[in-house]
């Protein structure tokens, strides 16, 4: 039995007992009186007179029983619930409004809680540090470390108890069913120690397995083990990874991952500590270190400085030697720093700012909801004037009346919070489903006890905020005048009207700020979508294929494979052309490879270093298929075959950076440290490779068909693009048939239209703009409803006055204008305040804007006009009702 029911049971028994006690008292008195000679009727009457009112005695006595306070509070709530049930419309609007506000807050807070506030799921996660290197000359703030640096760092640092490196990639896994392409990571010795996680079954790698010629082994993620291997015992069995047979030595616990990469397959990174010198310069590892107990990140950073200063000398080099082929490539305090960042804050990056902006937005929505509710309750309190005055006349003190209001608002806010949690639950699902690609740690988002505590606190706070409004009314209104007013209601309510109007202005101002913010973000998003990425993305479909190195060990076989794919695609009816490239715009990883440019001798510290941001391996048909216009020179042609002289195409930015005021055509370049010179045959229009919101970098295009000869290498992982009038779904079986016809073991991955690739690249700004847009709409609706409600109430209240005006000859238009003017004045004041607040606040979000200033005049003007329009619509309904007031009826009203 629950405590409340127990309490009521006990009280009922107690009350029954007391009835019997009183009855026995009266009976005894009666008997004594009869014995004394009174008639039975007199005896009964006198006994009752002597005893006094049983009702009063019962009431004063029951006050003494235990649990009385509790009982009274519960009674208050029951009364409040009953009286709210009598006004279902009011209650439904109030609860729903609040549920919207609280639900949105709960949902967004759940995201913040899971992503930002919850610690990472590793032991002592605060000790984990993400270690990268910084190369200021190349504008790299967080670059990979090379293996030599990792080995040095691991030996020399004094701050970390263990350090490990990793690099993510993709592998083809031979599973029980078809081959699968999954995210993999190669990890160095010490990686799992640093993470502090052991395998759920089996073990992680031992040191021997990370050395050259170690046994081929693999560790699987729990997810892959369950989905691809059905959760059967796999430790000790062989699995095909990129067509290499590897023994499974362990399966990690569920959810184990690094930096939110979704790693399914863990492979040892093979490093030879004895061959350190050969491993310098090839940067590919991110490092994760675990701080020793008691060492802070700050202390570790301080300890790093002397280490950086002595690094090159410790490697046997001369720290003062100029950079060049003979100098030792190792970190130093100036040009090649090492960075530490707390792993968690690095993982969540800048999303916390965006999430807090969203949270602020939903707090604004909730505030508007509270303002509406305060207004509703205030009006309800006013319409209950008679009842309240009567209660006061019957002896209810102010405290008693206050309790009445507070219990009503508590009932409303509790129901609102409960409904809000339900809404949040549904909303959060949709949120995670649409936003999982743009929110880091999306897997950690759930509604836990923190979230419920937050909701509870929020509900209580709301109840307090809008519950206070009618109290204000109580405090200001003299209850005896209220009684008189209740008899003949006049327009002497200006004080309360002032409160109501202030509330309307406040909610308008709040809504304006939110709508402005959403407007700016929507414009930014629109700008992002309109960015010219340098190629025509319509009617383009893309997929990628990774050729396993073992079977395609000869790079000419890679070229032959993709040539066949393109040739077969070209033959398909409806396909205009097809091409393959190594990096898919608009968001691909940078290469940042050194190049030798004929005639370009950079002055250190003044000119940009001879380093190219993007190296694109493309097939002959690339420019034609992507519709990238040539600025000068020519694109690749069939004549540029594998045996003809090496050629390359550069982009406009590269031409501008390295060949200012010169004609780049015919210049020669050695990319990637190649030994051969390539001749520049054309300059292509810039293509956005590093995201549509950033500048195009320097880029050069090598001909895929030529590189096996010129570089002795051809990338085995290529993206194929098909320009076709056929849609994605129609094209799919054809592509699958072509690829599996060439090699049955190859999976097709990343099959998307180019439009999809684009919208994925701007998923996060879209997510933010969409959510903020939804919240702004809700805020707008709520404030419009609020304005409407207050005006409608004012019109009802002024019926008499309007009637007099009409009787005295006011025209319909005059009455209409009078009400409209009031609504628009309130909205106008709110608008001005809101726009001023926006101008101050949007600066916070300026880093999220693209192609629009925080005080964009167009957005501000549009918001202004729009809000006035909304206010006009909200005012017109009550204004029209005011014109229908019949003077005769109005003058007779109450």
């Amino acid at each position: 039995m629950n405590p409340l029911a127990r309490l009521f049971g006990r009280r009922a028994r107690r009350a029954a007992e007391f009835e019997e006690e009183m009855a026995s008292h009266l009976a005894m008195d009666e008997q004594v009186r009869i014995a004394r000679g009174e008639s039975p009727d007199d005896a009964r009457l006198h006994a009752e007179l002597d005893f006094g009112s049983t009702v009063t005695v019962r009431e004063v006595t029951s006050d003494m029983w235990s649990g009385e306070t509790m009982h009274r509070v519960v009674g208050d709530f029951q009364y409040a619930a009953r009286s709210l049930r009598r006004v279902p419309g009011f209650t439904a609007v109030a609860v729903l409004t609040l549920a919207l506000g609280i639900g949105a807050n709960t949902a967004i807070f759940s995201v913040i809680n899971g992503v930002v506030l919850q610690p990472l799921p590793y032991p002592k996660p605060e000790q984990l540090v993400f270690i990268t290197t910084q190369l200021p000359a190349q504008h790299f703030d967080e670059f990979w470390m090379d293996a030599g640096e990792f080995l040095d760092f691991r030996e020399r640092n004094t701050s970390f108890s263990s350090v490990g490196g990793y690099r993510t990639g993709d592998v083809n896994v031979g599973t029980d069913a078809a081959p699968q392409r999954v995210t993999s990571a190669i990890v160095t010795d010490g990686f799992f120690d640093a993470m502090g996680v052991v395998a759920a079954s089996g073990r992680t790698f031992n040191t021997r397995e990370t050395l050259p010629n170690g046994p081929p082994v693999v560790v699987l993620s729990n997810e892959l083990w369950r989905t691809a291997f059905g959760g059967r015992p796999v430790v000790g069995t062989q699995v095909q990874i990129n067509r290499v047979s590897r023994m499974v030595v362990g399966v990690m616990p569920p959810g184990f991952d690094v930096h939110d990469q979704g790693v399914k397959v863990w492979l040892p990174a093979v490093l030879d500590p004895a061959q350190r010198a050969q491993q310098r310069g090839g940067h590919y590892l991110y490092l994760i270190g675990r701080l020793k107990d008691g060492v802070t990140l700050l202390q570790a950073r301080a300890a790093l400085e002397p280490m950086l200063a002595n690094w090159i000398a410790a490697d046997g080099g001369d720290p003062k030697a100029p950079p060049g082929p003979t100098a030792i490539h190792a970190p130093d305090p100036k040009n090649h720093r090492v960075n530490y960042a707390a792993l968690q804050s690095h993982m969540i990056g800048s999303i916390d700012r965006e999430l807090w902006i969203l949270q602020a937005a939903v707090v604004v929505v909730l505030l508007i909801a509270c303002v509406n509710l305060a207004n509703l309750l205030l009006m309800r309190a006013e319409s209950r004037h008679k009842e309240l005055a009567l209660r006061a006349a019957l002896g209810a003190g102010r405290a008693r009346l206050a309790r009445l209001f507070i219990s009503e608002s508590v009932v409303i806010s509790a129901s609102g919070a409960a409904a809000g949690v339900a809404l949040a639950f549904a909303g959060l699902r949709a949120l995670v489903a649409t936003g999982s690609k743009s929110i880091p740690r999306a897997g950690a988002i759930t509604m836990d006890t923190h979230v419920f505590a937050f909701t509870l606190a929020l509900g209580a706070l709301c109840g307090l905020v809008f519950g206070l409004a009618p109290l204000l009314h109580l405090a200001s209104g003299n209850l005896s005048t209220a009684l008189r007013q209740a008899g003949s209601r006049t327009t002497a309510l200006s004080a309360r009207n002032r409160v109501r109007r202030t509330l309307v202005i406040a909610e308008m101002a709040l809504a304006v700020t939110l709508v402005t913010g959403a407007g700016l973000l929507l414009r930014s998003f629109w700008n992002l979508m309109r960015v010219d990425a340098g190629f025509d993305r319509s009617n383009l479909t893309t997929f990628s294929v990774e050729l396993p190195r073992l079977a395609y060990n000869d790079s000419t076989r890679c070229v032959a494979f993709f040539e066949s794919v393109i040739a077969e695609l070209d033959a398909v009816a409806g396909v205009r052309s097809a091409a393959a490239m190594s990096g898919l715009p608009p968001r691909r990883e940078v290469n940042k490879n050194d190049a030798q440019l004929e005639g370009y001798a950079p002055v250190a510290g003044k000119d940009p270093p001879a380093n190219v941001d993007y190296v694109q391996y493309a097939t002959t048909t690339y420019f034609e298929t992507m519709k990238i216009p040539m600025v000068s020179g020519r694109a690749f042609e069939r004549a540029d075959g594998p045996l003809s002289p090496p050629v390359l195409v550069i982009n406009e930015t590269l031409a501008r950076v390295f060949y200012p005021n010169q004609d780049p055509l015919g210049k020669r370049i050695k990319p990637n440290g190649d030994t051969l010179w390539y001749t520049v045959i054309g300059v292509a229009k810039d293509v956005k490779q590093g995201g549509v919101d950033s500048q195009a970098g320097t880029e050069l295009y090598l001909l895929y068909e030529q590189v096996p000869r010129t570089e002795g290498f051809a990338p085995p992982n290529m993206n194929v693009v098909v320009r076709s009038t056929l849609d994605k779904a129609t094209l799919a079986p054809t592509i699958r048939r072509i690829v599996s016809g060439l090699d049955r073991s190859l999976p097709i991955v990343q099959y998307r239209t180019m439009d999809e690739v684009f919208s994925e690249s701007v998923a996060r700004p879209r997510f933010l703009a969409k959510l903020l847009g939804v919240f702004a709409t809700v805020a707008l609706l709520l404030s419009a409803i609020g304005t409407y409600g207050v005006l409608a109430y004012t019109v009802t209240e002024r019926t008499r006055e309007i009637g007099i005006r009409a009787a005295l000859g006011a025209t319909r238009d005059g009455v209409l204008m009078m009400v409209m003017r009031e609504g628009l004045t309130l909205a106008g004041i709110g608008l001005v305040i809101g726009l001023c607040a926006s101008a101050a606040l949007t600066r916070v979000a300026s880093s999220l804007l693209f192609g629009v200033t925080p005080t964009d005049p167009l957005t501000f003007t549009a918001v202004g006009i729009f809000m006035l329009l909304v206010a006009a619509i909200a005012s017109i309904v009550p204004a029209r009702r005011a014109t229908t007031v019949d003077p005769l009826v109005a003058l007779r009203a109450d």
Partner: protein
Amino acid sequence: MLKRAPALTRIELLQGTLDLIILQSLRWGAQHGYGLVQHIRAHTRGVLDVDAGSLYPALHRLERQKAVKAAWELSENRQRVRVYRLTPAGRARLIEERSRFELMTAAISGLFAQPDPAKR
């Protein structure tokens, strides 16, 4: 009808004094509510008249404070009555309240016993 002292000679009970009176009246044994009313009236020759609206709240308060304990018993007329008796805690409380009451009455009497300086 029972003769009552005139209204003016009846004393409005001071808050707290009623507790003392009830505890004192229960000293000689268990009593039901009606019995207590009669007992107090008889032993104060009608000067102190406790009405039900004061007695029962006081009794129930004392019960909640565990100074008295209540039980249903059968009266001499074979009637079910709720009977109150002192608990050890109630006995201790009686001693304490009584000494405080005596201290106060002694103090007030002392005030009245002082010779009037004006008349000397």
